[in-house]
């Protein structure tokens, strides 16, 4: 897949001297969904704002499909759609007019069929003549997405699209993003909901204090950093780990009804076969075997956690 968005050593220092981005570099392929995870104030919104032209970079470069965001800002911005974090809409405007406005603003001629398609896709067609102030919060968010899609962008930025959104709408949003991917639209979303990244992203980037800590294929990331636990549930209760099994890193759980074995999925030999043979060897009967993978959340927390001793 060709690279559609290329960010090189992007820095942004605000007037007060606060450095929101400290040399961010990121390459994003066409058609992928990438989730940027990070705590509040990590620089997620500043990164998006800078790429979209809302704030000016202090140094570094950004290109969208080869167009520089400063020198070729017209071509670059025409390719980008932005859904902001805060709901910002003209309260007295009608849904269809505000979407038409966005389309015109991005230099596309009036095309009612395209606007209708977007509104239908976002289940807004029935509300097209409603004033925005009459819509629910979830509907307003849909309007924001419709506005961002009005000019048929190739790259879509979703800045915390599901903050404060109910479960049903969140699922709908994920479906919308999936649908866009089918059309080849690249989606970059920021979130601090780990499950969101886990549910829809192809790659995950972790950003903290203006720096990208890691960008990796989501599955690989979870495989690489993921610790797995094997819970061996027994038919008899144990007081202690049998001596014959002393060679394994085992703990007792569930008041002695379970043996817990932690192992690394990336190592070639996990030792499960041998362990289970030995467990049977000491005469223990297995009731059930459960494995549990550590979630992205565990990985995330371990990445952004302050090293001990530092401030």
């Amino acid at each position: 897949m060709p690279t559609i968005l290329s960010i090189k050593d992007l820095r942004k220092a605000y007037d007060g001297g606060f450095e929101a981005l400290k040399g961010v570099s990121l390459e994003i392929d066409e058609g992928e969904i990438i989730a940027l995870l990070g705590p509040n104030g990590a620089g997620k919104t500043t990164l998006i704002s800078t790429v979209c032209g809302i704030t000016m970079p202090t140094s570094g470069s950004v290109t969208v499909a080869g167009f520089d965001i400063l020198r070729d800002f017209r071509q670059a911005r025409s390719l980008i759609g932005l859904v902001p974090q805060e709901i910002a809409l003209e309260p007295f405007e009608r849904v269809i007019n505000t979407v038409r406005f966005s389309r015109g603003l991005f230099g596309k001629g009036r095309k009612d069929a395209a606007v209708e398609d977007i509104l239908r896709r976002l289940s807004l067609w029935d509300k097209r003549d409603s004033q925005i102030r009459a819509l629910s919060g979830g509907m307003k968010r849909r309007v924001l997405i419709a506005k961002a899609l009005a000019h048929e962008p190739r790259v879509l930025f979703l800045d915390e699209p599901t903050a404060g959104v109910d479960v049903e709408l969140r699922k709908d949003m994920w479906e919308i993003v999936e649908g866009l991917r089918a059309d080849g639209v690249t989606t970059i979303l920021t979130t601090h909901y780990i499950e969101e990244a886990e549910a829809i992203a192809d790659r995950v980037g972790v950003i903290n204090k203006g720096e990208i800590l890691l960008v990796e294929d989501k599955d690989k990331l979870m495989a690489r950093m993921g610790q797995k636990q094997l819970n061996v549930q027994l038919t008899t209760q144990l007081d202690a780990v049998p001596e014959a099994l002393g060679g394994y890193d085992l703990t007792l759980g569930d008041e002695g009804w379970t043996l817990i074995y932690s192992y690394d999925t990336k190592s070639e030999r996990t030792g499960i076969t041998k362990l289970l043979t030995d467990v049977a060897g000491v005469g223990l009967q297995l009731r059930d075997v459960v494995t549990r993978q550590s979630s992205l959340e565990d990985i995330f927390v371990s990445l952004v956690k302050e090293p001990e001793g530092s401030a």
Partner: protein
Amino acid sequence: MNWSAISAIYVFEMARFFRTIAQSLISPVLSTSLYFVVFGAAIGSRIDEVEGVSYGAFIVPGLIMLTVMTQAISNASFGIYFPKFIGTIYELLSAPINFLEIVMGYVGAAATKAMFIGIIILITSFFFVDIQIQNPLAMVLFLVLTCVSFALFGFIIGIWAGNFEQLQLVPLLIVTPLVFLGGSFYSISMLPPVWQTISMFNPVVYLISGFRWAFFGVADVHIGMSLLAIAGFTGLCLGAVWWIFKTGWRIRQ
């Protein structure tokens, strides 16, 4: 030039105007009528003529200017301040448009609205007084330039304003006094000499004088000076807008 964007902004802003068409039009028509009743009929009946023009007719150009200036400022300043206030400015900043195009959309719409209201007032005044326009072309030119330059000025105020109080501050504390003291309701020659001299420092005097000259052929200052003043003011506002565009002042960090 992204004409589609300019027209999108223009249409969007005009839609706001037409959505509130009643209050957009009724209030200037009503207040103008009141001015005619108070100044034209009640007080004006005691004033014969000013420079050969009946007082009722004499105040018409000043009244139009008064309304057009305040309307152009308030429409343009509100037009750009409101997106800043509710946050929709993000869309303008992320769109493939430059600042000049944003200005053309907002200032164009604000100037059109002001002009619309100016024409309505002119029509209203025909019901109250007898007026003839000696130089229709000059009148239209002055009206258009005033609408555009004051809309530009309003746009700058809207960019500058950090809250609604500031949005009202400049029109209320500077523009309204200047317009009232700029000869809307009197000829500068009616003032004592000292105040005549002071009035010459009021830029609005030149605009009203020029506009009145277009109507009646009488003026406080030479028409050339009036043209120079309006051109200078327009140039000044354009310069300020250019500077904002270059620096991103108050809009793009």
